[in-house]
């Protein structure tokens, strides 16, 4: 067969915001195997968390990744608050929900933009990011920062949203919604995007179960899971919304799920703002003096899926073990199923489809592909090749 084409992607690659390394084994443009190496981004956050107090951990987990900088605190808050079993004030619940959903919009817009960028469709990139700006403005208005909001604290939130600000937020939201609708239309109806995304990187429900994939990746394959509904936290059981799913499991379905989820998020935000405007007074923080010894398990639905935090406390004021499982950690291994068989170009977008961010995956990890290509390659190609060869040999024998 001669040499196999080996295409490196990364660790510094325009496709990836973060350092990450894939080795694509290709046959022409077709990817037959993929080995990957991580650990570039491994910052040892879980260990750092053990040296921080419960309160400080918020600011660390916020920096697990800047894109889900609410989801991790969210899950962490759920986990820690479950140890003493505190009920946080209603107002805080709404504010948390609001921020969580705002983040979902910002993150999905970001994804749409980046996906466009990977496809060389820079206009979509620019548009999506332009429309993301109002969302960031809203963040700035609420929390004082565009990313890494430092909004959460044990027992509630750190800043209130008064009704005047809520009114402003309403306006910005209306504006953003219009734009987002526009963008959704533009992306969903573009025939070239259809051609490029449909049937690419398909995952079945079985794959999802095997890998434990979550979030839009799972929902796009018809697996109807969403922590917000299954194990409601904050105010998700108090507002009215629905879980978006799609059946196809390809990249387009994932895009579709993400785009439509934004609209649901806007719906939720509306209801939250409504509540905040109607009930302008209220506690935003419950006082938690001590965290007793015990185990806290919390999860939250990040834009990319379930974030899972496991916290063990010994009665001190810092966790003795803090295990973080980010959605990408279980979604990224699905590349092995989604990339192989596609072309190099598809690999890029199929990779992007999970919306991978290695930051969180790697706070702890470094991994390789384990089922080495042999199986995948052998099964598909070698058998066929050897059959052909036998046939040829047979024929030649026959001729003589």
């Amino acid at each position, binding site marked *: 067969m001669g040499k196999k084409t080996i295409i490196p992607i990364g660790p510094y690659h325009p496709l990836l915001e973060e350092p990450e390394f894939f080795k694509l084994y290709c046959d022409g443009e077709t990817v037959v195997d993929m080995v990957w190496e991580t*650990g570039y981004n*491994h910052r040892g956050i879980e260990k750092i968390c053990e040296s921080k107090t419960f309160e400080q951990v918020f600011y660390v987990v916020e920096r697990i990744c800047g894109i889900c900088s609410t989801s991790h605190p969210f899950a962490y808050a759920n986990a820690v608050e479950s140890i003493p079993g505190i009920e946080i004030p209603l107002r805080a619940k709404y504010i948390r929900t609001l921020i969580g959903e705002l983040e979902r919009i910002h993150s999905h817009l970001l994804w749409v933009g980046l996906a466009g960028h990977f496809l060389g469709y820079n206009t979509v990139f620019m548009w999506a990011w332009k429309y993301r700006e109002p969302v960031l403005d809203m963040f700035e208005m609420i929390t004082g920062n565009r990313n890494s909001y430092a909004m959460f604290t044990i027992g509630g939130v750190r800043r209130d949203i008064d009704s005047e600000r809520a009114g402003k937020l309403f306006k910005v939201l209306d504006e953003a919604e219009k734009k987002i609708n526009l963008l959704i239309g533009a992306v969903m109806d573009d025939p070239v995007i259809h051609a490029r995304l449909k049937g690419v990187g398909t995952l079945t429900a079985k794959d999802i179960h095997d890998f*434990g994939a979550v979030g839009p990746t799972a929902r796009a394959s018809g697996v109807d*899971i969403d922590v917000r509904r299954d194990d409601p936290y904050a105010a998700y059981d108090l507002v009215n919304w629905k879980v978006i799913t799609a059946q196809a499991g390809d990249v387009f379905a994932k895009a579709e799920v993400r785009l439509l989820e934004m609209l649901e998020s806007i719906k939720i935000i509306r209801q939250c703002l409504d509540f905040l405007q109607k009930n302008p007074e209220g506690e935003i923080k419950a006082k938690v003096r001590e965290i007793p010894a015990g185990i806290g398990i919390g999860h939250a639905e990040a834009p990319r899926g379930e974030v899972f935090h496991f916290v*063990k406390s010994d009665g001190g004021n810092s966790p003795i073990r803090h295990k973080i499982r980010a959605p990408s950690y279980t979604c990224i291994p699905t590349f092995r199923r989604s990339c192989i068989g596609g072309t190099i170009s598809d690999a890029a977008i199929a990779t992007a489809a999970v919306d991978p961010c290695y930051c969180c995956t790697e706070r702890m990890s470094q991994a390789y592909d384990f089922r080495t290509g042999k199986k995948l390659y052998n099964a598909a190609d070698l058998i066929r090749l050897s059959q052909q060869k036998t046939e040829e040999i047979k024929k030649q024998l026959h001729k003589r």
Partner: protein
Amino acid sequence: MKIEKFIEEVKQKYPESDIEVINQKRLMIKIPRGLLLKVTDYIFNVRELRYIIVSAMDSQDGYEIIYHYSDDASGWIINLNVLLPHNLPEVESITPVVYGAEWIEREIMDLLGITFLNHPKPERFLMAESWPEGEYPFRRKENKE
């Protein structure tokens, strides 16, 4: 409710297990390590719970490994807890059953020095090439060789 039935069934099938509701909607099932694969198979394949992750830590009594599963229909999180003594950090790998557990087992292998038996690719993988052998950042000082 469904979860009660589940608890009943586990109790019945695996009487050695020790079941405890740790807080709202969180279930901890402590099992001896010999039972791990069977219970995993039951939970993952029969009950079709979603695998979340595996946590491991170095506690005073030994290395504690907790397998987290989620029952999405009810919102319960089911945790399997296996305790390994400090002097024998070995446990069966669940990767043959749960496809997605491969990374995390290797991660634990790397960070805590626990051996997973029958792991499909039990390669040593550390953060950096330069990371010294036999060093496990998550082991407590007293357990570091």
